[in-house]
């Protein structure tokens, strides 16, 4: 690395003209779709495992396994499954859905959805536990009252469980959206450190890493880090406001 030279705001000026940066920014925002998907899936899952059935604890534990598995190990296993000669292609060919194997990880339009799927799958157990804890705090009396009022099973959850889980929903929204903005491991493993064909998987943190550690552009990387800081800060403030509003309305 060469000694620093004062260039004012030129790194930012360059960032504005950098198409890959805008792509990365767009991908990071698209990645935020993981948050609502996670919330909906985890609530459904929490309701499903919130029953007193024999062996239910084993189910809860199984859903939690991806959370405690290292993200690198998970990434590698998924990569093997999605490989040209992997499990998924084998299955699809066996079922007769496709004739020739698809190069899942070499299709630019699939890179981001696959990474998002991976993040969702890994987060499922953790957020499910949070919602499960929330559900167990909701008094049974409320459900009994709802049944007396004529609610069916679906309405019971819509009118009792979901409002009761509001603090948990806000918490999960804050945590998972921040995690989505700083996604790196999944992209790194799935794209072999390249960011996907045509930069199809490059997110903000990945681009930051590329600039800093691959191209040794410390200045550019710092500029990206500052932009990322501003975005995450704005998100956190917004989320905390929502959280405060939630507690206020509850009290």
């Amino acid at each position: 690395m060469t000694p620093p030279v004062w260039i004012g705001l030129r790194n930012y000026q360059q960032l504005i003209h950098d198409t890959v940066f805008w792509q990365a920014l767009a991908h990071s925002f698209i990645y935020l779709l993981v948050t609502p998907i996670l919330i909906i899936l985890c609530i459904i899952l929490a309701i499903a495992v919130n029953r007193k059935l024999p062996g239910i604890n084993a189910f809860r534990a199984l859903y939690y396994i991806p959370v405690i598995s290292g993200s690198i190990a998970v990434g590698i296993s998924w990569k093997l499954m999605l490989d040209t000669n992997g499990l998924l292609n084998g299955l699809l060919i066996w079922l007769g859905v496709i004739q020739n194997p698809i190069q899942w990880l070499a299709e630019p339009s699939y890179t981001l959805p696959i990474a998002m799927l991976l993040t969702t799958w890994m987060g499922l157990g953790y957020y499910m536990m949070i919602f499960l804890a929330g559900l167990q705090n909701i008094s049974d009396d409320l459900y009994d009252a709802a049944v007396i009022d004529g609610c069916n099973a679906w309405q019971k959850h819509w009118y009792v469980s979901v409002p009761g889980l509001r603090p948990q929903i806000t918490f999960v929204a804050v945590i998972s959206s921040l995690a989505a903005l700083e996604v790196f491991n999944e992209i790194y493993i799935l794209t072999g450190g390249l960011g996907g064909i045509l930069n199809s998987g490059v997110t903000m943190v990945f681009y930051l890493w590329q600039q800093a550690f691959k191209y040794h552009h410390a200045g550019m990387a710092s500029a990206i880090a500052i932009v990322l800081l501003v975005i995450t800060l704005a998100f956190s403030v917004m989320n905390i406001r929502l959280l405060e509003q939630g507690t206020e309305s509850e009290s």
Partner: protein
Amino acid sequence: MRTKLLAILALLGILLAACGPAATATPQVVQQQVIQTQIVEVTPTPGPNPESVIQNVEPNATITFWTYYLSPTFDDYIKSTIARFQATYPGVTVNWEDHQATFQQDLNNAFAAGNAPDVINLSVGEGWVSDYATQGLLLSLDDKVPQSVQALYFPGLWKEQLVKGVNYQFPWYQSIPVELINTQIYTGTPQTDASGNVTYTGGAGLKVSDFPKTIDGLPALCQTIKQKTGTLCDIRLSVNDLLSQMVYEGNVKVISDDGTKFTFNSPDAVSWLQMYVDMVKAGTVDKTVLVSDQDRVGLDLFETGKAAFYQTAPNLIRDVRANNPGLYGYLGVAPLPLGKSGVVAKGSMGISVNAKTKYPNASIALAQFFTNPTSMLEFAKIVSIYPSTPSSYDDPFFSAKPVAIEDSAKPLAKGIVATYADIVPTIPHTTDVNTIVLNAIQQALFNEEKSYSNPLSLFGSRLTCDWSFCFVSDCGGGVLQLHGLQHCDSSGLDWVKKLSAIDS
């Protein structure tokens, strides 16, 4: 009769021997003594050791030697060579250190701190020699190494990494890239029928000896393999150094002679790229491997038995044997197909001397000693590397018929290594240029959407604009140049237009 003859001959011999001293005149004896004194005066220190070829080695010099990824596998070899060196040049002490993943980082820090090693093992293939030499950190060798010593090396290797016409490295061990072939896919499983005819089933039915001699043959080969076996070709672009690949494979002129302008916006470059574009469009290559920046990705695909062939070095065949012994028995080896330049590759490793060493002669002596014919031959005997010195190949070791497939390149090695040359000119800011070129090439290879032809032109114009701007006004080493378009040179957009043409 025979005994008599022998007896006479013996007697004659004794008589002649007895006559010898008596026949020698006394002045001649005096002359002999004079010669002896002269010999003592001419060789004051090392004695007549043929390996001692560098003169005026500083007495009591202590020098440091850094190698790259050689310990612990080659500890014995390195230590015994150092011991032989110290015996050849008595009084010199060598401290050896092996650095691995952090080699370059350690070396940069050491240069910055002023305590860099005296003798350094640098990769020629990765461009380290030219990097450090350009920064003035290495000792130029042409004027310090006698002509007779320079002549020990292949001329192409001695001159392969010149910086402004000067050499900064002793060429060290070389490797020979080959095409490794999985004959189960490439040829098929042999089956002998009742009449003794051998037929091949389950493979593409191709012969290893018919592997294409030039890269132009690859598209048709991949088409055949895909049609007959459903397997994709395991070919990788040199993603980390695309300009080099353009030069070796497409014989593309990438930069102007005065080094001020990129010139790869040419029909040569377009036709080089077109071959890969066609293969991607035909769906005959594995796209993940094609643009992967790690050799491991392609090698893994081959090792798992899912590819018909892969370009690699013979020393990696050990890897195949360790990871998939079942495949090892079905391996074939073919010479690498040549590109339009006709040059296979550049050499791999060199040894350089620190420009600021306190003991230049001792350091040069060590660098030379490790790369001399004897040391190189010893090294080649323990691992599949190839010497940079032609005379090492005279040893029967190289002419012996190869037993293991790893050694199949051995009898041909001399001829192949002799052709090695670095034909890629020095490229300024290689990494940055490569990134932009990679983006443009990916667009040409994979982008089928018309709407994307605009970003494509952006990448292309960015390249021409940035660098032409930098050449005229120095942007300073550490500052990444502006990617703005204000410094555009529209004449450079040809490359872009051609890429767009390919795209559409």
